[in-house]
């Protein structure tokens, strides 16, 4: 083997080593969680968690999924929390897409008074993180009697400047002639939206859906504020409530099983929509 080819092998090897180390760093905690969910609470509690699975898995998952109580405390069953989280994530993702695609359509394709004023109003909300307006938002939701409802959980999070901007930028790349051709073909604004704009936005919608679903699924602060009953608990807040403040021991085996279950829907969404997701971010099909 010539020196130059061995050098190129080395150059091939380095990125792989870096990537493998990176993967290990990311995967190891998840692996520990997975393993932990198959042991009994006693083993985990002693701090000597082995790196191989045990046989307690099915029991742990069954208990987490349906059980009202662990060995040491009362919990909301995962199936309830999963349903709540799913409703929240889907409502937020679909609601955000519906609202933002319509407002972007208005801003990009119609000329109406104060058009740019509205655009900038939407734009400046980008600069306000949820946390800044969370107290007034809470007050509004509370006064409307929406505490502990799905509406209160999702509606305040549905308005999205980011998605509106993304759609607007995409719409601006649709040539004016397409709109004019549709006008001459006899398509009004609604038909043009349904027949042309929506199909052309397909990949963008898919990419945004993945991002927004995960955003919705991972909401923490807002659900923590507006839900107080156990029936409305979402899985992300639920997990943190399972972990005690240190005065009592934790049901680590159930917590780990719950965590694993909590990861599944986002993973499923990413896997199912991967092809469209990448397409939507990488190329604009035109």
């Amino acid at each position, binding site marked *: 083997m010539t020196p130059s080819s061995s050098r190129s092998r080395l150059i091939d090897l380095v990125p792989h080593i870096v990537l493998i180390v990176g993967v290990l760093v990311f995967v190891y905690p998840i692996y520990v969680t997975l393993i932990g969910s198959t042991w009994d609470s006693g083993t985990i509690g002693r701090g000597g968690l082995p790196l191989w699975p045990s046989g307690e898995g099915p029991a742990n998952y069954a208990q987490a999924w349906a059980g009202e109580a662990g060995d040491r405390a009362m919990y909301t069953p995962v199936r309830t929390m999963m349903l709540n989280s799913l409703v929240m994530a889907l409502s937020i993702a679909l609601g955000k897409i519906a609202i933002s695609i319509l407002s972007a359509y208005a801003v990009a394709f119609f000329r109406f008074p104060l058009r740019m004023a509205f655009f900038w109003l939407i734009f400046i909300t980008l600069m306000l993180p949820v946390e800044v307006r969370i107290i007034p938002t809470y007050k509004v939701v509370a006064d409307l009697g929406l505490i502990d409802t799905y509406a209160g959980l999702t509606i305040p999070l549905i308005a999205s400047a980011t998605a509106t901007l993304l759609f607007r930028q995409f719409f601006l790349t649709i040539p004016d002639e397409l709109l004019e051709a549709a006008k001459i073909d*006899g*398509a009004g604004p609604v038909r043009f939206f349904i027949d042309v704009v929506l199909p052309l936005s397909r990949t963008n919608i898919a990419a945004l859906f993945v991002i927004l679903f995960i955003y919705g699924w991972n909401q923490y602060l807002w659900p923590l504020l507006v839900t107080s009953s156990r029936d409305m608990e979402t899985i992300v807040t639920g997990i943190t409530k399972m972990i005690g403040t240190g005065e009592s021991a934790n049901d680590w085996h159930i917590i780990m099983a719950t965590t694993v279950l909590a990861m599944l829907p986002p993973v499923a969404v990413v896997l199912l929509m991967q092809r469209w997701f990448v397409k939507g971010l990488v190329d604009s099909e*035109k």
Partner: protein
Amino acid sequence: MATVDIRNVRKSYGPVEAIKGIDIAIRDGEFLVLLGPSGCGKSTLLRMVAGLETITGGEVAIGGRVVNQLDPKDRDIAMVFQNYALYPHMTVFDNMAYGLKIRGLPKAEIRARVDKAAAILELGRFLDRRPSQLSGGQRQRVAMGRAIVREPAAFLFDEPLSNLDAKLRTQMRVEIKRLQDRLRITSLYVTHDQVEAMTLADRILVMNHGVAEQIGTPLEVYQRPASLFVAGFIGSPPMNVLDGRIDDRGEAVDLAGGIRLALPQPRLSDAGRAVKLGVRPEHLATADSGFAIEVELVEALGADTVVYGRLAGGESLLVRVAGLPTCRNGDRLTVAPPPDALHLFDAVTGRRLEG
């Protein structure tokens, strides 16, 4: 099939008047070309006929019906755009059928019309493809197909060939001509390409700065340009223009350097008038007396040769002769036009002096 009447149509953008009153009656089945440099308002005029721009003043009537207040879809027109404007997510068939679907035609009728148009345009094999899978020329044919299936009162073309390469443009030009001979649908065609205008038009409307400089058949526009602008815009290479003065007896034009060209007939009324004299490069031929030029550059185009000459006074003079070059840089030549090939324009207004 219908007439299109444009009556004193104006367009203003705020204080800026882009179209300053255009009048033309387009006959049923006529092919009218709107020709002019970019920014002359020709596309704006077409878009006002289409209903894509509001009309500031005047009237547009299609088939005798004033359409000023009608939406584009109600004007019974079809338009072909420069960048084709095909729906990228639809097949060729759906692109052509879309307007018919919206109008609620029966499926069988749509199928029949699209098949017929596809046959005319030789698109039959591509009906299931997406626009992205077609070449530029094929896309342009789909855009024309979309117009044909509508069977409109008028076709509107907005520089349809500008995005094609030179060879394809020539080919599509011929196809449009054939299509027009076959369908005989009233057409308005916007272009800045004089060859397209000359070959396609029944009549040409030459526009400049929002004004109709001349309306006439291609040969009228070539043989009797109504203004210096038209004279310079039509013809390649452009017409030579020289300062001159009609002599006191109205019999000849005196030019700088003592050159004197006899007029075909005396113009007593214009005696002593300052004029611009136009001579087309292709009308100049070697002669015993006339313009003495020094050859500065020779362009051999194969079929003919363009000679860039300079007169003693410093003005340049282009000569176009058939065949291969017979002179070289630095040669001295004397060229002259036949008397009936002289064009006289008013030195101030630039309008043609008729007579």
